[in-house]
């Protein structure tokens, strides 16, 4: 068990006024057997009335609507949590066994899996570790070549990507191998931005694996949101109106 402090902030700035701005944040860490929030404060600026719901995947959703003109939207979350990754999470959903939008393999990724599946044996954990190993030998970590819309198949073709791409490809491989897997967005020891990793189903609980670093997760990983792939987990989604042409997003996160 480890007590950690977390901080995460996003500043959205527009080059012209926007209005009728609806947003949905998945930013408040879910309470699970392996993660208990000791304290957690969410601040949104400009002030806006918000509502809390829990979505199908167990995420805390904070939704709001800013009708008036504004040029920025900032939100930050600060809190303390107790993390114990040895406590089991068992919130299984059968949809995690099936490919989703971002993880749908193309023939190249399928062929790649067919080429390695002979060596992919043993328990779910052994197979996940094997696939993650193969992945880190095949894909290089490189920023700037992919973005949030890149699918597993596209990133695999490029043979490079960031944590999101590693996660999507690993999920795709795990699902092809018959292991249910889900995408996790969260904060980890690496400062600056959000991190992403994968959980796979062992048959009776979830285990976390970090494919970008090719290591199992530890008490230094705070889950913020989870789902079939990135689309279910986006920390902030919004729709707004106005004549703006650009939006600038600054993200900062700290885990200590």
């Amino acid at each position, binding site marked *: 068990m480890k007590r950690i402090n977390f901080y995460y902030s996003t500043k959205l700035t527009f080059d012209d006024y926007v209005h*009728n701005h*609806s*947003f*949905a944040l998945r930013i408040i860490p879910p309470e699970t057997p392996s993660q208990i929030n000791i304290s957690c404060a969410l601040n949104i600026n400009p002030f806006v*009335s918000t*509502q809390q*719901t829990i*979505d*199908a*995947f167990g995420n805390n*959703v904070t*939704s709001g*609507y800013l*009708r008036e003109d504004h040029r920025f939207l900032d939100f930050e979350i600060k809190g303390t949590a107790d993390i114990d990754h040895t406590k089991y999470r068992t919130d299984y*959903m*059968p*949809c995690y*066994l*099936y490919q989703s939008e971002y993880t749908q393999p193309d023939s190249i990724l399928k062929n790649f899996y067919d080429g390695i599946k002979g060596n992919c044996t043993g328990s779910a954990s052994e197979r996940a570790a094997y696939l993650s190993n193969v992945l880190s030998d095949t894909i290089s970590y490189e920023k700037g070549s992919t973005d949030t819309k890149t699918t597993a198949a596209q990133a695999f073709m490029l043979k490079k990507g960031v944590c999101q791409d590693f996660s999507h490809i690993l999920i795709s491989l795990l699902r092809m191998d018959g292991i249910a897997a889900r995408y996790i967005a969260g904060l980890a020891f690496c400062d600056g931005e959000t991190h992403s990793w994968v959980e796979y189903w062992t048959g009776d609980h979830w285990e976390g694996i970090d494919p970008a670093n090719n290591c199992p997760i530890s008490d230094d990983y705070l889950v913020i949101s989870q789902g*079939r792939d990135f*689309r*279910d987990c986006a920390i902030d*989604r*919004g*729709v707004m109106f106005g004549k703006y042409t650009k939006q600038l997003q600054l993200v900062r996160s700290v885990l200590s």
Partner: protein
Amino acid sequence: MTQQQFTKAVGNANEINELLRRYGVKFGIYKNGVFNEQFFPFDPIPRVITHEDFQSIEKGLVQRVNALNEFLFDIYHDKKIVNDGVVPEDFIYISKGYLAQCEGITPKNNVYSHISGIDLVQAKDGEWYILEDNLRIPSGASYPLIARELTRIAAPQAFEENSVVDNRSYAKLLKETMEYANCGGIRAILTPGRYNAAYFEHSYLAEHTGSVLVQNDELFVEDNMLYHRTYSGGKTRIGVLYRRIADEYLDPLTFLPESLIGIPNLMEAYRSGNVGIINAPGNGVADDKGIYYFVPKMIKYYLEEEPILKNAPTYLPFYNNDMKYVTEHLDTLVIKDVAEAGGYGVVFGSDLTKEKLEEFRKTIIAEPRRFIAQEVIDFLDLPILDKGKTVMRKADLRAFILSGKETKVWASGLTRFSRNPDSFVVNSSQGGGFKDTWVLSR
């Protein structure tokens, strides 16, 4: 009054078609990227369903829709039917209509399919068969509704003598159904706009149910409530939304982010029980062509009853025995692509050349879950008027079942026919026409 006399009394079809024109009975269609409004051709000879026939169809449809509603609740909650091995898991989660985002949501009064459009055909031996279920946004009820209004004027004697059940209660039935799903507020019908194929219907039903016809830019969600933005800067709460746009476009913050016709955070308002959505998002999992095969099993599973209405004999290449039968009898079967709708993706084996047949066989073997195969039913042809002469054409029947406090079958329906003598496809988007459907009260 005989059919000939009725036809004469209604006048030639042109007169009624002229009236339908006048009242704007149209559907929009895009051809080569250009929007055109077409009048939906009406054939004056009604399809007549006897009192006895209707009684058994009615029971069968109520049974079917009740089972489908139970199925939807089960799939988005405990999944008993999967865990008990009645429906293979694959068929649920591969279906495009299954929406994981809807897991755990319980619509008001557990009703998922408020308005079900079930397509049936009558075979030459008189037996009725279910062709498909439409539990998302089945359209077409407005056409027989307005056609009846006009034929009653044109041929009063026919209605004097034939004891035809008045079908004009549809609007009242729909209003009751909407009210049963209402979570507190006004009723609204959401349309993607006047360039939608069914725009006439959206606006006609809004008028006749006393609902507000809205587009997404008039709506917003604030504090998990759905509101209509009024022109004085105020807001009016909407308690139930009969949406005529597809699930994927409904809420850009939950489904397709690029949807421009949705309402951001609608799903949060819905999940919180503050607005009813007709029909419930996620219903597509139950009207999937692959799931169709399992509906008779659902009836037994949930209701412990024998199905009253039959499915067309269907084979799932997913099962080895069925695959064997399908590949051996491909030339006599009709094959449907489970992902397609509106008469697209339907192939008759008998239409294919030897080479094409062989090619298709390979496709089925490669993607067994993508297709279902059915025996071709020998449809009972219906008479239609073609340039003054009566000719026989293929026709189906879309029955409308409304689930409010009770499940009720509308004593009418949309009979669509193919204008092409060789075609089995009756969809309006494929050039078909429609007839009124008479249900006799004795």
